[in-house]
């Protein structure tokens, strides 16, 4: 069974530099939780703190309600899957999986039984006697998972274990991981810089910028209502327009920009007169009809790349700024020529304005 993991005001300092600062996250028992962020944002540090390779400079880490300070990683209810997998090359698949039990002096008979169970769980049937070097990439991945699960961890920590695989195998392993997590009910904490990976697999995602957690929420909430400009621009494709707020209209704001005036949601309740940034997802931009009056942008098509189910159209405005639109191939879209003058629109419900910079809001 999984246990919950609490990070309370956790900071990690290396010399003068903070790799993580004032992190507060409560990961539920049995949850699939991802930390998503660019490389160098401190997410691996966070994982190493939870696994016990180091203790935080400040703050507290609790697993299953118990303070973990001073407890070495060999005595924590966690198991880690390393980015390079760190399989033991001189051992067979069975020996690798059974290692955690062997060092705990579990009897040979019990060990064999457990190893067999795990080989079945991760679908490695028939490879038990092979050396690790004789396996394919996906099989190695499974050995690493089985080896970590063998010690019955309450929390499984995964440090970008899929990054070395090719796209097809990666998609397959994503589904597999999610599946294994559901079957075992262990808390999974997953580290990745790949937003698709985080969004597709996780119950909740924590988006990190440099040393900070910017937002913790369900994947759709992260995508649809990002709390900060950093989250909005890091997760998913987005169009950005700078402007000044000239009017407040309930939950909406009217901004004056170099491209015209636009209405959009104002979740941070930014006040009139401030300079802020509008974010618009490419899939919420459409061709404007004659009758449209609000949020219309005049521009010229630059490139059109047809991808089958949809076409990605890049547009330039008079100010020579780029804007992207994603048109679904539903038969209603007229054929566009490159260099054509068109008008596009977006709904005020699908655009939102956020404060400049990456400061999270309370």
């Amino acid at each position: 069974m999984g246990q919950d993991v609490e990070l309370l005001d956790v900071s990690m300092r290396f010399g003068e530099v903070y790799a993580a600062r004032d992190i507060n996250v409560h990961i539920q028992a049995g949850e699939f939780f991802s930390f998503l962020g660019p490389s160098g944002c401190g997410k691996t540090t966070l994982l190493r703190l939870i696994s016990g390779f180091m203790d935080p400079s400040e703050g507290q880490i609790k697993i299953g309600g118990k303070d973990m300070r001073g407890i070495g990683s060999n005595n924590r209810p966690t198991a880690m899957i390393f980015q390079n997998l760190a399989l033991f090359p001189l051992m067979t698949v069975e020996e690798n999986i059974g290692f955690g039990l062997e060092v705990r002096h579990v009897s040979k008979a019990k060990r064999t039984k457990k190893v067999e169970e795990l080989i079945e769980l991760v679908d490695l049937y028939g490879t038990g006697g092979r050396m690790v070097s004789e396996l394919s990439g996906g099989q190695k991945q499974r050995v690493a998972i089985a080896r970590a699960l063998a010690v019955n961890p309450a929390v499984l920590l995964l440090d970008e274990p899929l990054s070395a695989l090719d796209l097809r195998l990666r998609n397959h392993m994503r589904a597999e991981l999610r599946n294994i997590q559901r079957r075992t009910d262990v808390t999974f904490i997953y580290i990745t810089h790949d937003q698709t990976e985080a969004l597709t697999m996780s119950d909740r995602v924590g988006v990190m910028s440099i040393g900070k957690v910017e937002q913790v929420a369900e994947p759709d909430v992260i995508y649809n209502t990002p709390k900060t400009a950093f989250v909005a621009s890091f997760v998913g494709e987005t169009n950005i327009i700078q402007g000044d707020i000239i009017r407040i209209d309930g939950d909406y704001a009217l901004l004056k920009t170099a491209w015209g005036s636009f209405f959009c949601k104002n979740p941070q309740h930014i006040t009139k007169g401030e300079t802020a940034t509008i974010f618009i997802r490419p899939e919420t931009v459409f061709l404007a009809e004659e009758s449209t009056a609000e949020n219309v942008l005049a521009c010229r098509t630059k490139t059109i790349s047809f991808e089958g189910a949809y076409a990605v159209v890049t547009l330039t405005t008079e100010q020579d700024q780029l804007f992207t639109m994603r048109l679904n191939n539903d038969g209603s879209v007229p054929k566009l020529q490159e260099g054509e003058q068109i008008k596009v629109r977006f709904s005020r419900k699908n655009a939102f304005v956020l404060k400049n910079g990456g400061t999270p809001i309370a």
Partner: protein
Amino acid sequence: MKSKSIFKFMIGLYLVLFFAYMFLPLIFMTIIAFNANDIPQITPWKGFTLMWFGELAKDDQMWSALWNSFIVAFSVVAISVPIGLGGALLLTRLQFKARNFVYGVLVSPILTPGIILGISTFLFWDSYMDIPGGLWTAIIGQSTFISSYCMLLIMSRAQRFDLTQEEAAFDLGATHRQVFWKITLPFLKPALISSMALAFMQSFDNYNTTLFAIGVEQTLPIYIGTKLRSFISPAMNALAVIFIILTVFGAIAYEYRRRREMIKAAVKIPPEPAAQVLGM
């Protein structure tokens, strides 16, 4: 066309000269071991004999020197390999400021002439510590530089060790001791075995350091050296022939084993491609 054949001829000549230079002395020495001549010379040939081997077998001094050589060599292995291992682990994983200095100190005995190591070992123990020279000082003296060799050898493998393997083992619940015995040491095993062999051989035929450190005792090289200075006997050639035979057999056995393992590895069935395993 012509320059090509000249080139071929030169290469051939070079090889003949090279091998003659390498092996003629050994061949001469071997022939002398079977010549029934009191003086170790090829001519005059006084008939084939095995008497020098018999004489060698009766030489008590030789046996005791050989026994001493084994004691010293095994002791040197027992001391140098652990010291080398410790130094190698220290230098490959710790990043401290004095690292280069420590490296220099640990390697310096290799660069110091053997005679100086021998004399200083003897002086230190004999004059300052009041422990007379003997096998003990020979072991210490040899270990000073042989440990450095072992360290360099083990370091070259330790540098290729992936430290996350230790973390993984530790994370899976192993104690530090278990990590060392089950993960680190097995990885270093090939380097440990070759450093043992190297230490043994370095010790076994060491002359310079041993001569000055050993006091009144004798190891085999010291015994041979003394013998060659006092009176020359073909029995020494017989001894050399025995060592040549042992060496050649050792080399052949090693090569045979290596080739057999290569064939074994080549015969193994290659792993299935990923797509097949995933049923795609």
